[in-house]
Structures are given as C-alpha cells and as structure tokens.
C-alpha cells in the first residue's frame, strides 16, 4: 500500500470520525446537560437514546429550506459551507497516534506533517470567522448581524492571547511549529528533570498558566459558554444563524461541535502530551509496535473525550459573560498574562539552558 493510498484512507476515516463525534457530541451534550440537572435526557430513540443523533440528522435534512428573500443568496449558502470546511480542515495536522508499521513501511497517523502545524491550526481557525461573518451578514437580519459582529470581534480578540500562550509552548519544544515534533518532545525526557515516568513529560506541568490561557481562549474560539455571545439564544434569538434553517443550520451546529472536537485535540496535543501516555516506553518493550500505536490513539481520544466533556461541564456551570467583561478579559487580562508567561518561559529557558 503506497503512502498516498494510506493518506487518502486516513483522510476519509478522519472525516467520518469528525462527523461521527460531532453527531454524538450533540447527544452527549444533551445527556450531560440532563445529568448535571438531575434529569435523564434523550432515552427514547434506541437503547439509552443512542439513535437520537440520527433522528436529529433526519429531522434536519427533512426540514423546509428557507432562504430569505432579502438575503444575498450566494453568500447565504457560502457561510455554512466555509464554516464547515474550516472546521474539518484543522484535523489534517494533528498527530493521531504513534506511527504504524506494516512490512517495513512506516505509516504516520497524521495527514500532513507540515513544519508550521500550529500556525496552520491558528490560521484555519481564524478563517472560520468568515463563515460566521458571511452567514450573519448575508442573512440581512439585525440579530444575525449583531451575532456575527460579536463573533468576529470576539474570535479575533482571543486569537491574540491564544497565539501568545502557544508561543511559550513552542519555546519549550525548541521552537518547532510542527505538532508532531511538539507531541514527540513531550514523550521523551524526565518530568522536571527527575521524575522518570516515560511519556509523562507533558507541557501542562511546565505551563499551567499557558494552559489556562489557552483553555479560556479555546472556549472563546469555539463560541462555547461562558463565551457564547455570538449565539446567546436568550438575547439574539440564536445570533448569526437566526435566519438559517434545515441542513444549513445543521452545518453550523455540526461545525461548532467539530470545532470543539478539534480544539480538544489541539489542547491534548499541545499541553497533555498528545498520544503519549504514562508507561508508553515500557509497553513498547513488551507489546508489538502496532498495538502500542493503537493504544496511543486510544489515549489521545481519551484525552479528547475528557476535554469535550469538560467543555460541556463548564457550559452547564458558568453563566454567560457580559460583552464588555469578555473584551476586558481578553485584552486586559489574558493578553498581558500570556506575554508575561512568554517572558518568564524565555528567561527560565535561557537561565537553565535547555
């Protein structure tokens, strides 16, 4: 099997996994919401309501497609497409596990190991703003426009702090921007230089502040509570997707969950060692290489699922910010903190050598 065929299969599998996880995130969201509020949640469609996402999807497809008369038709259709496209594109640079090996041929579980991986993620995520902005603008509706304006200013503001908090991580891993190298560097070496657990040299232990900043920014980037002002259904009737119906609305909602999945993956890769797990070296000596690879994929997905749960957990805990509070937090708190974090990291690295 040539590498090209393998990559094509990987892309297809990733596509399906992203959509599947997004579908079941909607189910999980409803279940988590219900459980945190002492309810049961959807349990009618199939065992434990497991077929609920399918029912929701069928409902979305069968609903009437309404395009407002006064809207800009082309842009109205382009909005959700761009949003979905950017959401799906991000998964290309994430290393999903240790490389597989068949007959001497090594297959990297990463679609594209580009040397600017982190930059690519930040760039593509920023493009997602266009999906929201175009959709909100083309709707020709004041609520949609307000939601779109809120979304774009919020996402642009938080990208700065996000980028700054990532820089500290990049300094930690010898300045490489490749996500694969960043993850690999967290799998080698001893934690704090003396705790010898293989695969536990995670960045979060060195960069707790950077992690918190990145986490807060990830919440803001994915428009999740407490930063869900673009949607804020109680103020803006759904924000930028007010005018959307049928599967276009479905694409927006779906893409939001894919964004959540991808940002969980990025958090796991940057701060929680990606596919590394404690004892990965020991397992490598007793188990065949490919089995360890599959366990590493499972480890990464475990981390991702935890963060998806964390997103939902926070959603049902913290109320929405006011817009000026949101902006103050982004510009006056997170930005300076991120810069200070970069300075401290740089100073410490310079002082102690590497």
């Amino acid at each position, binding site marked *: 099997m040539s590498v090209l065929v393998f990559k094509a299969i990987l892309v297809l599998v990733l596509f399906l996994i992203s959509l599947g996880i997004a579908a079941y995130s909607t189910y999980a969201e409803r279940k988590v919401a219900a459980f945190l509020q*002492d309810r*049961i949640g959807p349990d009618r469609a199939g065992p434990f309501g497991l077929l609920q996402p399918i029912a929701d999807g069928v409902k979305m497809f069968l609903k009437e497609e309404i395009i407002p008369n006064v809207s800009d038709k082309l842009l109205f259709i382009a909005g959700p497409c761009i949003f979905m496209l950017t959401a799906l594109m991000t998964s290309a640079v994430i290393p999903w596990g240790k490389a597989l090996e068949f007959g001497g041929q090594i297959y990297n579980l990463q679609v594209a190991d580009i040397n600017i991986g982190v930059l690519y993620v930040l760039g593509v995520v920023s493009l997602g703003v266009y999906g929201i902005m175009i959709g909100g603008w083309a709707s020709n509706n004041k609520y949609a426009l307000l939601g779109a304006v809120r979304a774009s200013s919020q996402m642009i503001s938080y990208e700065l702090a996000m980028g700054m908090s990532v820089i500290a991580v990049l300094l930690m891993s010898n300045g490489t921007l490749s996500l694969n190298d960043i993850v690999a560097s967290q799998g080698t070496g001893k934690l704090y230089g003396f705790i010898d657990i293989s695969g536990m040299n995670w960045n979060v232990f060195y960069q707790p502040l950077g992690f918190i900043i990145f986490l807060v920014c990830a919440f803001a980037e994915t428009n999740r509570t407490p930063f869900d002002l673009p949607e804020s259904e109680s103020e803006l009737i759904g924000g930028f997707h007010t005018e959307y119906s049928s599967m276009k609305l479905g694409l927006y909602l779906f893409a939001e969950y894919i964004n959540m999945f991808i940002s969980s993956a990025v958090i796991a890769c940057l701060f929680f060692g990606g596919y590394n797990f404690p004892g990965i070296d020991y397992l490598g000596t007793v188990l065949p290489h490919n089995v360890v690879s599959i366990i590493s994929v499972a480890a990464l997905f475990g981390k991702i699922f935890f963060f998806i749960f964390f997103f939902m957990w926070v959603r049902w*805990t*913290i109320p929405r910010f006011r817009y000026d509070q949101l902006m103050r937090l982004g510009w006056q708190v997170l930005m300076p903190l991120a810069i200070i974090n970069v300075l401290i990291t740089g100073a410490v690295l310079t002082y102690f050598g590497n």
Partner: protein
Amino acid sequence: MQLTNRSKVVTKPEMTFVESLYLPAIFSGLRITIKHLFKKKATLRYPEVTREFAPVYRGMHVLKRDEQGRENCTACGLCAVSCPAEAITMDAAERKAGEENLYREEKYAAKYEINMLRCIFCGLCEEACPKDAIYLTDRIVHSEYTRGEFVFGKDVLVEKVDQRIDISKRKKEYTI
C-alpha cells in the same frame, strides 16, 4: 424610614486578588455541578413508570355496581343538587319486572350524564351520594376532539361487570 429590622444594607466590597481571578469560584461551581452527575434523577420514564396518585386524588367518576352486578344508583338527584358546577343531569326511570339483576332498587337512572368540561372534581357528588353509587377514581379523563364528546353518559361512567374499578383505597380514606 426603617419599617422592619429585616432590611439589610447592601455593600459592594472590592474583590480581593484571589476573588478577581474567578478561578476558585469556577472550580467550586464545577464541583457542585459534577456532584449532580451522581445524584438520583428526578425524571420518571412516564409511559413505563407512573407516579402514584395521592389517596385523595379525585379523577374521573365511576358509577358503581354492587356485588351481584346491579347498579347502585337510584337517581335520587342528590349529586346533581350538590354539584356546584351543575355538571350532572339525570333522568329517572322505574325498574320493570325482570330487570332485578340490572338495578338494585325500584328506581334507577335511565340517563346519567356528567359534563366533564363543567366538572371541577370537587367530590361533593361522592359525599352527597347515599347509595355508594358515585366515586371519583384515580383515572384520568381522556381527551376528546369536540366539546360534545366530553358529556360522558352511562356507557362511560358505569363500571363494566367484568372490569370492576377499585375504589377501596378511596373509600377507606374518605368515608365517615
């Protein structure tokens, strides 16, 4: 002017540094919500599980028969008189020879109608009845499509001989 001593002076103290981080507050909030994950759920899966009614619950009426399957009602009209919503109407008739197995006494209700849209389920008819004929049960009045269909006649109200309606709980709790 202070009217009661319950009033409180509202102050807005400056937040301390730790408070202004919000993180401790967020973590305590997260702890509270995660506790609810393991709590007993309040939901009842309705069609499979039903919530038990209180013994004094007053639902749809039933016209009782005695042990031999004869109707208790003698069409005395006390229920109709006591009804504050004027929901009950009836026509009395005399029992013919050969109908002794149908009606317990010489007089019976040929027509007995309760307008369920008028009824306020107060239970006064049940209290007024001297013959133990009418009871409010824990059954729920079913829905209909037109207003006319809510006037329930004897075909709905009288219990079937082979499907007796249990009112023992209600009788025990409530009769004097």
